């Protein structure tokens, strides 16, 4: 089964995706590859709103029946919103990783240079190489 890598998103090597929103914030989630590797998600812990995050900082935990896995913030900034629905419906990460399964929205820190993220093609290449 092929894993989806939408063209309009950016990615990290730790399998997070980043979507630029019209208001300047970014939305963050885990990729189709990540949810597929983890299996059925049963528990998700997302950071408090207003928490300041450094790029690469462990900020969320996703737990499947199989394992617990840290999610790293792809960017530096402040948590503007978090997906409250996930506490009752962690399975959204499996069924719709790029949509209803989003984890948090982050207001970018203007003083920190933009993080180096992968384009869709680069991430796909990275997945192929790490197979």
């Amino acid at each position, binding site marked *: *089964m092929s894993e989806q890598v939408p063209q309009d998103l950016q990615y990290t090597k730790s399998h997070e995706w980043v979507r630029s929103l019209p208001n300047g914030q970014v939305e963050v989630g885990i990729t189709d590859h990540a949810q597929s590797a983890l*299996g*059925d998600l*049963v*528990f998700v812990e997302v950071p408090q709103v207003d928490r300041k995050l450094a790029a690469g900082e462990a900020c969320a*935990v996703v*737990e499947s*029946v*199989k394992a*617990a896995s840290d999610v790293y913030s792809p960017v530096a900034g402040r948590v503007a919103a978090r997906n409250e629905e996930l*506490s009752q419906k962690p*399975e959204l990460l*499996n069924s719709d990783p790029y949509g209803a399964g989003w984890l948090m929205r982050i207001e970018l820190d203007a003083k920190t240079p933009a993080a180096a993220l992968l384009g869709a093609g680069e991430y796909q290449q990275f997945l192929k190489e790490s197979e």
Partner: protein
Amino acid sequence: MGLKTPLYDSHVAAHAKIIDFGGWDMPLHYGSQIEEHHAVRRDAGLFDVSHMCAIDLTGARTRAFLRHLLADDVARLAVPGRALYSCMLLPSGGVIDDLIAYFLTDSWFRLVVNAGTRAKDLSWIRKHAAAFGVDVRERSDLAILAVQGPNARVKTAALLSAVHRGAALGIQRFAAAAVDSWFLARTGYTGEDGFEIMLPGTQAPETWRALVAQGVRPAGLGARDTLRLEAGMNLYGNDMDETRHPLESGLAWTVAFDPAERDFIGRDALVRARAHGGALLVGLVLEERGVLRTHQAVSTAAADGSVGGPLGEVTSGTFSPTLNRAIALARLEPPPGGRMPQPGARVLVDIRGNKQAARVVKPPFVRNGKPLIEIQ
């Protein structure tokens, strides 16, 4: 590349996620292990457990041999076809493996042992069988399918002719019979009713397809683990091993101390351990959201909710799809001068640095589709 069962191609064709399990390439799930879990609790699921090892023991003194080899007493098996769950112990009392022994005739018993312990089990059994003149034969020609769930027996019997169907449905719980070309046992590892079918490996793919056509859902090792843990059943290597004896592994009920003159391997060590007391395996239910996992530390909760002394650790933890809550087996020892936490007591579990409250319960957590633990 690992070892493959006769059903490997069936798993791949069904889009299984394949993982290594004790050297075997086995299906973890076929898409969603939680859906597979529910299918077993509510209807019928199908597991390939051909990686487990059937061993036939034959010879006039087979029963005497097993009364020496096993901690439980096969003298309890009076009617041909009856089965017994038992541990096989080291002289130290440590568990070499847990297994099921089927009594077939006075000169033929069949054992089914775990996949990961196959080699050491066989060499241990052979070593002790010689003195009893018992022949030990590994039945690697057999595949084993477990069909489990409230509708499992009826859906399995539907594959048989009318004559054989009656025989299959007449098998008592924890017994087995030869039916057609199958060795059919009403046993399992899920806490549900059902069958384990031993059959020639060459017939396994066709039988697999026929069961799926009956609406039996393929289920992988992931669901097998959550089902067995809900059923309060131990996993060898997690909940017991060669360093732990049955009394501290929740398996005291499987040790037959009577009759006193039965000299089974490990007996002296267990008699000493019984007098001494010590660690016990208990059930835990996490009170908040989160997931219990193997090796998490368990401690007492002080009256003010702060962390008290160490009690032990989780031996098997998971998320229970039936209870929608994390559950675990944990091996606890009474704190110095203190009492063992009783069912209902609250303890703390270290989950990645957070101390989270869990309640001590008496397993099983779920049986025959019904929760046995009240979720507060």
